């Protein structure tokens, strides 16, 4: 493993990510020569199979892109269809949409933070080994996650592929009692999330910071879920209908996912760090206070600290869920009527991993003629590769196993959802 040989660091099946991917790093003469973060998840052709389907079917069909963040797909599809049909979903129905999104963020973030990402920081292979040494912490995390799932179940019917979301709103709205029944757990969850985050703050974080081009939704009145302008940390701001002028997709040979890039070859970074950088001022009081206790500042540029920002967002999601439930009055109608019309429209909402974009074209009967979907991991894939380049060089002295583990951790910073972005991950380091 001298400086004059080739090293290959290779991870054939990347663990603790959602879906199938691999990583190859080739090091020659002590320099990183190539990094490939590969997605080999088989393609499922959603954009093609949506053609010829009814506009009302898009939410449930696209939910099946991802079992971890189905609400993101359900929501982006609903908003796109409503944009085409000229319908606005407001008031309590809009609040209920935010409420179920709170459930998905809690469930998905806590799954990633404690079961997928945390073992890297503490030197465990998985959460089960971790539980053997710190059972109370794991039990608490599992219970927090479960509360996120309960929220999804009460509003959506079930946690994976909820059945209660439709274009125009919901099939049935929850009663005030059903939601009030969640409050005790949600208040416990809020406290528990703060305790969990205080523990995570003690983790060792690699010194690694970068000037990212963050992209997220921004809304004047709230931390974003469903709606807002598309905003970059470079000062761009536009309606979501201009998404494709900000981010264009490229198809690269080693991947069944498509890569998204910004103009001037800038690599967009979406997800918790981006949302925090662009919307930090809109956090709820305890989430903001938690971020301040952690000294996260206005912008967090260390991707390894994404685990902390996810923690801040979990606190936000609990506060927001409690606020929504306390103000909830069941609306008279579970949905607004939506009549199809010919046209094209977009939906873009904040999945736990970042913005999830849908565009559809409908005919006058409401049949889908064209569909385009961009998953957040497709956008982050290039940033992940660039992070690996920049991270491996200063750490090139590490032995292969250690380097491999740190590279995996660097990938998991992004909570990559490979099932989603297939349209990806094995880790191989090749040193010469």
């Amino acid at each position, binding site marked *: 493993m001298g400086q004059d040989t080739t090293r290959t660091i290779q991870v054939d099946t990347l663990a603790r990510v959602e879906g199938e991917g691999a990583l190859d790093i080739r090091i020659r003469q002590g320099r990183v020569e190539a990094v490939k973060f590969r997605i080999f998840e*088989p393609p499922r052709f959603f954009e*093609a199979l949506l053609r010829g389907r009814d506009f009302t079917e898009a939410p449930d069909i696209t939910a099946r892109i991802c079992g971890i963040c189905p609400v993101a797909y359900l929501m982006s599809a609903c908003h796109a269809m409503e944009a085409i049909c000229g319908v606005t979903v407001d008031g309590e129905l809009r609040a209920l949409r935010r409420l179920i999104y709170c459930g998905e963020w809690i469930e998905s973030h806590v*799954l990633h933070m404690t079961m997928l990402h945390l073992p890297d920081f503490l030197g465990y*292979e998985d959460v*089960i080994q971790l539980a053997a040494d710190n059972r109370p912490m794991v039990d608490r995390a599992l*219970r927090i996650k479960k509360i996120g799932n309960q929220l999804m179940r009460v509003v959506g019917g079930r946690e994976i*592929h909820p059945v209660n979301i439709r274009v125009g709103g919901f099939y*049935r709205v929850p009663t005030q009692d059903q939601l009030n029944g969640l409050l005790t757990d949600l208040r416990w969850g809020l406290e528990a999330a703060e305790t969990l985050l205080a523990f995570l703050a003690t983790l060792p974080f690699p010194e690694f910071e970068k000037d990212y081009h963050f992209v997220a939704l921004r809304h004047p009145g709230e931390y974003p879920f469903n709606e807002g302008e598309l905003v970059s940390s470079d000062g761009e701001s536009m309606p979501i209908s201009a998404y494709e002028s900000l981010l264009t997709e490229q198809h690269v040979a080693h991947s069944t996912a498509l890569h998204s890039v910004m103009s001037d070859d800038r690599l967009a970074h979406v997800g918790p760090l981006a949302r925090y950088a662009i919307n930090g001022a809109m956090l709820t009081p305890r989430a903001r206070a938690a971020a301040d206790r952690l000294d996260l500042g206005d912008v967090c540029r260390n991707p390894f600290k994404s685990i902390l920002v996810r923690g801040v967002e979990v606190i936000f999601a609990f506060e927001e869920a409690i606020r929504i439930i306390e103000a909830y009055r069941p609306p008279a109608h579970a949905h607004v009527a939506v009549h199809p019309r010919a046209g094209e429209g977009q939906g873009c909402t904040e999945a736990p991993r970042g913005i999830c974009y849908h565009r559809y074209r409908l005919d006058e009967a409401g049949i889908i003629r064209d569909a385009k979907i961009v998953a957040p991991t497709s956008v982050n894939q290039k940033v992940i590769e660039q992070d690996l380049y920049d991270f491996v060089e200063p750490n090139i002295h590490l032995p292969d196993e250690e380097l491999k583990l740190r590279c995996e951790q660097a990938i998991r910073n992004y909570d990559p959802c490979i099932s989603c972005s297939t349209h990806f991950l094995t880790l191989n380091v090749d040193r010469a």
Partner: protein
Amino acid sequence: MSDRPKLAVWKFASCDGCQLSLLDCEDQLLAVADAVDIAYFPEATRVMQPGPYDVSLVEGSITTAEDAQRILRVRAESRVLITLGACATAGGIQSLRNHADVAEYIRVVYARPEFIETLSTSTPIADHVKVDFELRGCPIDKGQLLEVLIAHLHRRRPIIPNHSVCQSCKRAGHVCVMVAHGTPCLGPVTHAGCGALCPGYKRGCYGCFGPAEGGKPAALSARLRELGMSNPELVRLYRSFNAQAEDFRTESEANEVQSGAQGN
């Protein structure tokens, strides 16, 4: 450690939701991890032990030549092979390609079709290897998952009801959405397992658990036509997450022939 049964979890073409169901068993997860040796489950652990395995849980459908080979190796290494969910038991939503031109599908999604290797069909696991138990649902029910796991560990038959959603719905005391509101519902012909979720939400069943044994989709279609559904709508209703399950496939094709006659 080594005397506990070895469990493996495999993924083929799928959304990850069914294996996520195992991680969603928040109250039982650590107990499961005590009872079995989680030998291979990449979504949850970096430890990847070689086979053979006592129980393999398989998620997803076969859509590539490589996966068609991989499932043979999984079978050869597994004493018991259980499929999880609609993709693994009925091809999944991605099996809509079986009714379309795949070259066209690739062109629609990918700018460089030459980079993409895929089969023209998405097929269930049982089309490729012997399957010991098929667990239905899109997604599966985690209670049923635990029951199937426990049953196989004790070498008994899993207690998984195979009646229709309609019967679960009556037992749950829901108002029938089809009778009361004229809402099209696949409950009479769909396999139980969800607890009649959709009708409980005033929505018609959309068939996540695939066809029930002994259901009569043609009779249901006749009623759905009376409720105003067109043939293309019926084709789409049967042709979704369980499109390749025999009874649903047959019924979607029957309606396709008729809609061809009226010009889809």
